[in-house]
């Protein structure tokens, strides 16, 4: 699961800026609840990405409440592209391995 929260966060924030609760709901919706972490755990990832310069935040008053909205920076976009390449490579490799194992089982 290393890097998965960062990948999901950057991918979703690339589309539009969101605050933490919104982002968690979007992650749940996009992954069909397959990834169930404590929802509060998203914030350390957001803070770390912001510190690395991959995200930037701004406070916005919405319905009388101040929300911290996050958005992806240009650096974050490059970071996301790297993560996507990495995960595509991993999933393809695992897919091949599973496919080979199935093929071997079928021929036996």
């Amino acid at each position, binding site marked *: 699961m290393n890097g998965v929260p960062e990948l999901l966060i950057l991918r979703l924030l690339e589309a539009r800026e969101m*605050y*933490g*609760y919104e982002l*968690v709901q979007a992650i749940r919706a996009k992954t069909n609840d397959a990834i169930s*972490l*404590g*929802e*509060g*755990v998203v*914030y*350390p*990832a957001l*803070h*770390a990405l912001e*510190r*690395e310069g991959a995200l930037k935040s701004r406070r916005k008053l919405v319905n009388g*409440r101040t*929300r*911290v909205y996050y958005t992806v920076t240009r650096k974050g976009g490059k970071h996301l592209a790297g993560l996507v390449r990495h995960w595509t490579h991993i999933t393809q490799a695992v897919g091949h391995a599973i496919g080979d194992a199935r093929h071997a089982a079928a021929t036996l």
Partner: protein
Amino acid sequence: MPQPRFDHLRECLLRAGIAPRHVRRYIGELRDHFDDLVREAKASGALGAAAEAAALARLGNENDLVAGMLARPGLRSIASRYPWAVFGLGPVAMLIAGLVVAVVVEIGVLDLVTLAMRELGWKPQPSALKTFTLVVEVWNTLAVYAAPLGFAALLFMIGARQRMSSAWVFAGVAMVCIFGGFQNLVWYDTGTRGEMMLTTGLLHPYPHFPEGVARAAANLAVSATAWWLFMRRRSSPETELSANAG
């Protein structure tokens, strides 16, 4: 809407060395998130306490919330990552920087006054010169006597805010008090032009050494008293009550 206070979580994070600004923002975001989760639970039919319990469960348990922050070393404060730099080198750097700033400001003002005298043909009265000398002396006294105590207070505040170990804070405060006691910045009005002398009683030929010992002891006594008063105030029942209410 009643909210969990997250006091214990805040203490855990600060003691683990997470930077106070990240802790403050994290707690604020968790509170907002909790509010949203309670609203969501109530909208789907849960009542009061049940909605809050469901919200807390979704937010994650305290161990996970702490572990999430600790897994990212970049969120730790500089003081917790490099305590030797902040509380070991910091006092010396602060004292040197303090004196340099004091001298640079003084020279800047002197240059301005000299320029004004030359360009505007201003000839100050002897009383004005005396006042100016007095102002310079007061400034030097502040830089020499008050600045070390100010730096000691600053180190103490950094340490207390970030829940640093008392040993580090004590080392930093003691260093700034002792080294600061031996520094000296003197202005001599020679009548035709002023002279400034910057000395430390800790280097050969150890000028004003006994005075330096007395000043260092006085700095330590003042800092220790302030520390004791702060600790006493923090541990008093009224303070705890008001902190819990806030």
